[in-house]
């Protein structure tokens, strides 16, 4: 029995040790004032990764770390108390949630815009040239669901043109739409210009003037409970300044 309780103590000690190690993992992040965590919309992944490299080069000793996800996921995480220094949203709605929750330091700044474009298989074999062509019978079109920003933009274009699309699938993210077209599952899809640019030769983009009816604006803001408010503010200024403008324009983002 004595031996048993000895072993029990050892097991409990081990468990405490493991739990302690796990909970200790996150704590060393807050020590350095130069390290910031940026919560950014998934569509900003490639541009922000590049911007972070440039920022770190210009601000020696600083480190920019990212959490890329859907804007609504990020807004929900911030609302649940996630620690971050900067939030960059792909739409105004999710930024408004974070502002309303009182989590921001200062007001958000619009730094980019994005518009929809049609993507088709390389070479546009279906000969799609207008938005109305997407409604042709037999054309498999994939769009975003109305619940997500790219889907509400799609709806706005539909209502402004009077063209009713009958998509074969309403995806929950714009990358899912793009991937369905790249894989050849769908004939055409509606994605952001930046997604089409990022996909390169895998798709052909067909620009439609009607897309101007649904411009998506990206705001960025420093957050209130930042452990490094100075670096956070500098990063926001960097994104909204000439360096940010250049990198974002290369990726297909429009000016705010």
């Amino acid at each position, binding site marked *: 029995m004595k031996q*048993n309780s000895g072993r029990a103590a050892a097991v409990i000690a081990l468990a405490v040790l493991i739990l302690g190690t796990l909970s200790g993992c996150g704590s060393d992040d807050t020590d350095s004032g130069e390290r910031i965590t940026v919560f950014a919309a998934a569509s900003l992944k490639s541009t922000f990764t590049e911007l972070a490299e440039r920022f770190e080069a210009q601000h020696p000793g600083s480190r920019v770390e990212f959490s890329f996800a859907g804007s609504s996921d990020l807004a929900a995480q911030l609302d649940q108390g996630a620690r971050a220094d900067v939030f960059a949203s792909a739409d105004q709605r999710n930024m408004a949630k974070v502002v309303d929750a009182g989590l921001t330091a200062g007001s958000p700044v619009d730094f980019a815009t994005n518009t929809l474009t049609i993507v088709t298989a390389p070479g546009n074999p279906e000969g799609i040239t207008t938005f109305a062509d997407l409604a042709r019978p037999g054309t498999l079109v994939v769009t975003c669901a109305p619940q997500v920003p790219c889907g509400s933009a799609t709806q706005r274009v539909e209502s402004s043109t009077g063209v009713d699309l009958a998509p074969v699938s*309403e995806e929950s993210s714009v990358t899912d739409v793009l991937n369905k077209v790249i894989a050849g599952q769908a004939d055409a899809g509606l994605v952001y210009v930046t997604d089409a640019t990022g996909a390169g030769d895998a798709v052909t983009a067909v620009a439609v003037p009607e897309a101007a009816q649904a411009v998506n604006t990206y705001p960025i803001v420093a957050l209130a409970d930042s452990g490094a408010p100075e670096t956070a503010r500098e990063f926001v200024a960097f994104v909204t300044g000439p360096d940010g403008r250049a990198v974002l324009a290369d990726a297909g983002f429009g000016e705010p």
Partner: protein
Amino acid sequence: MTRPARTVVPSGLPRWLFVPAAVGGLFVVLPLTAMLASVDWPRFVELVTSESSLAALELSLRTAAASTVLCILLGVPMAAVLARSSFRGLPVLRSLVLLPLVLPPVVGGIALLYTFGRKGLIGQHLEVAGISVAFTTTAVVLAQTFVALPFLVVSLEGSLRTAGRRYESAAATLGAGPTTVFRRVTLPLVLPGLVSGAVLSFARALGEFGATLTFAGSLEGVTRTLPLEIYLQRETDADAAVALSLVLVIVAVVIVVGSRGWASRAVP
């Protein structure tokens, strides 16, 4: 000699095992309780009976039932071959069968896409023949079957191994052919294993998300199953997502617990 044995037998288990076991139990139950606590009860009925919620639930139940039937049709012979035959490469085959169990669902979805998609290995020939799987309910059933099949095979193979072959040998010596033995002796013998395997695969099919999203798409009433609806609702109405999650948990609990009760009664 008998005395020490008597003092050990009643407890059986080392007592300290209960501590990590209880922690493990809490780890499973606590998140579900937390979800239960955050359900918006006054709006619950309204949230789960919306048109799109009901469409998703109905589609989920229909497709999970269809894929369970497919799992039985394909899985019973697979389990029988794995448990009752011996040939070179059998261990490798057994591992391959288990693969969907450990693959991330999105990988399963991509694999299915390049098999049954419009440009896929088999899909392109089907497309020529006028059969399109892309964006249909069939694609959902394929995705669910892919991830659920191992559950049936593993569970049934285990039953076949523990059941032994005595009754089968007896039937064979009495003149029954292999098909008769399989149908009249083997299958009834492992029926509880088959049922629990079928239930597990139904529950797994019901919860399938990644492969469906990657391969089948998401359209109300056609491909948007309950997990996909929950994922989408999260974007606009977190309360609806929580309420629907609870519905999915309840359906899964009822099915799994109900079948356990049935299986334990069915064991002779």
